[in-house]
């Protein structure tokens, strides 16, 4: 008996959907897939290829509305014939948006939530929760408020809550795309440990395949709603790279800073100090930096190093408690792309959103074509939201552009769009400052790099030099 078998699955969304445009309405077409018990299978492909849709269809209670043909057989039974209780117990789904999935205010209560729903006895709940807390090493946060956890902790907590219900099949929708490398590694290692211990079957939809491929048994590459390849990770990655070639640094960037024309600072920070509470430590401590006109600056640093704090100071949300921020141009216009780009949305459709910043249809940047103008900004995928936000802030014609994790949720095709936009910005003399964890992306697009650590920025170095001289901040060798 096969564990999970999908036969000739076709699916059309009931409502208008952006991803369906190029596939004659089909979000999924002729999907045939067989998954053995205990396998880890990765679904990958460009944004809108249907991987998330496929995952959601495997979880019947929350499956999207639309026309479905073909059949899904889970443990010998049609998926639609499973009772509601069986479905919630046996199949667990981790959604894309971490923050919204947390229901309760305390970590222990979140862990208990699913068990409470299924009506477990007090003794059973205690036992399972204790076990899960030990396995996922959540002891120190077990009584905390869920609101104070970091993104990585939240993601791990959600995985733990699903596991508390001991499902047979675990579905993960882009579990690490929003995490920084440190947390992504933590999550992957927890997943690996879990799989080694329990032999649970896992299906992951993800485009950060560098992390996932090493633990996958099989990879399924999708494009335009179809499966184009399913194979061992080593082979499948080749197909994936054909579809989404890695982003490259363009040749015409200067190789070194020597012999370059005179630099012109757009923004200078002098001895800046900032702390959040009177008795807490300084987040930024005697920070000195100068950001140049027409250059793209990349700032690295681990979580809580103060990158977002720095942006909030430059943008004027906070005032430096000591020191000065000097703009070379009086009334310099600042634009800020926050980590959560939804903060920039106010309208009901993409079109209105662009009209709000004074963009007419004729002025739209090219990449706006990829977006469905009539769709709600919230219905776009992560990378598409990023594009819309980019269009909004570039319409402001800023002098200084702050970008917090601009490549978040983007596949390499979208990253290339961002790359060419960044190039256009710097050529127009805009000073771009971005914070990022994505070294490949930063290498491809930036002119100058620096690390924020212990409240200070290390001196900006030319990107090529930075990646040559640094041993740890260097590009990963791809398989």
């Amino acid at each position, binding site marked *: 008996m096969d564990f999970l078998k999908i036969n000739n699955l076709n699916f059309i969304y009931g409502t208008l959907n952006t991803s369906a445009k190029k596939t004659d309405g089909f979000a999924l077409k002729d999907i045939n897939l067989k998954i053995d018990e205990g396998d880890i299978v990765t679904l990958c492909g460009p944004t809108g290829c249907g991987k998330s849709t496929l995952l959601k269809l495997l979880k019947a209670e*929350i499956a999207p509305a639309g026309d479905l043909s073909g059949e899904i057989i889970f443990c010998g039974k049609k998926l639609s014939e499973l009772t*509601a209780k069986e479905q919630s117990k046996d199949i667990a789904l981790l959604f894309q948006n971490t923050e*919204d999935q947390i229901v309760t205010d305390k970590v222990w209560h979140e862990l208990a939530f699913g068990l409470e729903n299924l009506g477990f006895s*007090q003794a059973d*709940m205690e036992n399972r929760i204790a076990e899960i807390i030990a396995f996922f090493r959540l002891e120190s946060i077990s009584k905390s*408020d869920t609101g104070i956890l970091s993104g990585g902790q939240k993601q791990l907590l959600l995985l733990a809550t699903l596991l508390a219900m001991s499902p047979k099949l675990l579905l993960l929708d882009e579990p690490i795309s929003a995490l920084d490398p440190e947390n992504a590694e933590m999550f992957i290692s927890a997943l690996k440990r879990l799989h080694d211990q329990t032999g649970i079957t896992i299906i992951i939809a993800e485009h950060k395949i560098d992390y996932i491929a090493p633990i996958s048994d099989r990879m399924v590459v999708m494009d335009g709603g179809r499966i184009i390849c399913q194979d061992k990770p080593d082979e499948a990655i080749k197909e994936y790279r054909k579809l989404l070639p890695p982003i490259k640094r363009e040749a015409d960037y200067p190789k070194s800073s020597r012999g370059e024309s005179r630099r012109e600072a757009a923004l200078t920070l002098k001895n800046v100090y900032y702390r959040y509470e009177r008795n807490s430590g300084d987040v930024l401590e005697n920070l000195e930096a100068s950001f140049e006109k027409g250059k793209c600056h990349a700032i690295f640093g681990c979580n809580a190093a103060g990158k977002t704090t720095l942006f909030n100071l430059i943008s004027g949300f906070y005032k430096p408690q000591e020191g000065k921020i000097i703009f070379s141009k009086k009334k310099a216009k600042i634009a800020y792309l926050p980590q959560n780009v939804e903060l920039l949305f*106010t309208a009901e459709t993409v079109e209105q959103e662009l009209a709000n910043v004074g963009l007419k249809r004729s002025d739209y940047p090219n990449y706006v074509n990829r977006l469905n103008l009539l769709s709600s900004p919230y219905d776009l995928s992560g990378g598409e939201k990023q594009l819309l936000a980019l269009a909004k802030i570039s319409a402001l014609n800023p002098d200084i552009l702050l970008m917090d994790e601009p490549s978040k949720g983007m596949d390499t095709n979208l990253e290339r769009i961002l790359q060419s936009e960044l190039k256009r910005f710097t050529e127009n003399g805009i000073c771009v400052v971005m914070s990022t964890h994505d070294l490949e992306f930063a290498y491809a697009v930036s002119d100058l790099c620096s690390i924020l650590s212990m409240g200070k920025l290390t001196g900006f170095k030319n990107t090529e030099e930075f990646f040559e001289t640094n041993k740890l901040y260097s590009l990963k060798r791809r398989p």
Partner: protein
Amino acid sequence: MIDRLHPLTIFIYFLTVSMLPAFSRNPILHLLCLVTGFIMLFTWAQVKNILKKIPFFLLFFLIISLFNPFFYHNGDTVLFYVAGRRFSLEALLFGADSALMVTGVGLWFISLSHYMTSEKVLLLFGKLSAKASTIISLVMRIIPHYSRYIKSYRRHQRILGLYGDGSFLETVKAEGKIFAGFLTWSLEHSMTTADSMTARGYGVGKRKSFKINRFRKIDFIVCFLSLCLAVFLGIVLGMGYFYTDYYPTVKMPAMSTVPTISGAVYITISLLLTINHFIKANYGFSKDKQS
């Protein structure tokens, strides 16, 4: 220790001890309530912080005391006239007594809100309805999350130029848009929350609440004593031993046996948890730090 008690116990005890004196107009009962409520603060707050709050409570006390004589002009002993209206001693005393009562109840409620953490509230309501407890928990989580979001939403929209030139009209318009935008955002995201709840089996069967506190012997004892106090003091008050009147002249009960005993009983029970707390809090603790 008080924070180890069951929420139901805490709820019953605090309500009985703080609310019972409010059924009379007797200043002595109100004073006892205030003093014991004040001492209760020391079980959890730092002395420094309590002392800092004293001026605030005095001011609060004064305002309520003076409120009455300015608006009520009964009472035989006229102290002076304000804008042609009588300012009587009796009205002042009645005001002072009300202030005593309100401040006393207030002090007890400050401690109550400290000890009734969201978890305890949840547990209390979880007993009544598992659904209610889920909703409370959801709300407790959502409120700080939403307030953080709105704050940065405003900031980012300001940069995008939503507030225009910052004039009053523009600000009002912008705030309307902020509100609408926030509403859309919260609705969109609550869909995921709802999906996440469904996916984890919310509503598939009879729901049970996971409890992390249990009712112990001490909970029974404290609840029982609270109940005894309520019945005893209820009878004593009902029989008029504490009958006090302010108009037209002040009438106070004589200090006979029954009121004296009742006062002693009230003090004993209202200091019970405080004393227990200080005994428990001062022994049995290791000097080691948890490694």
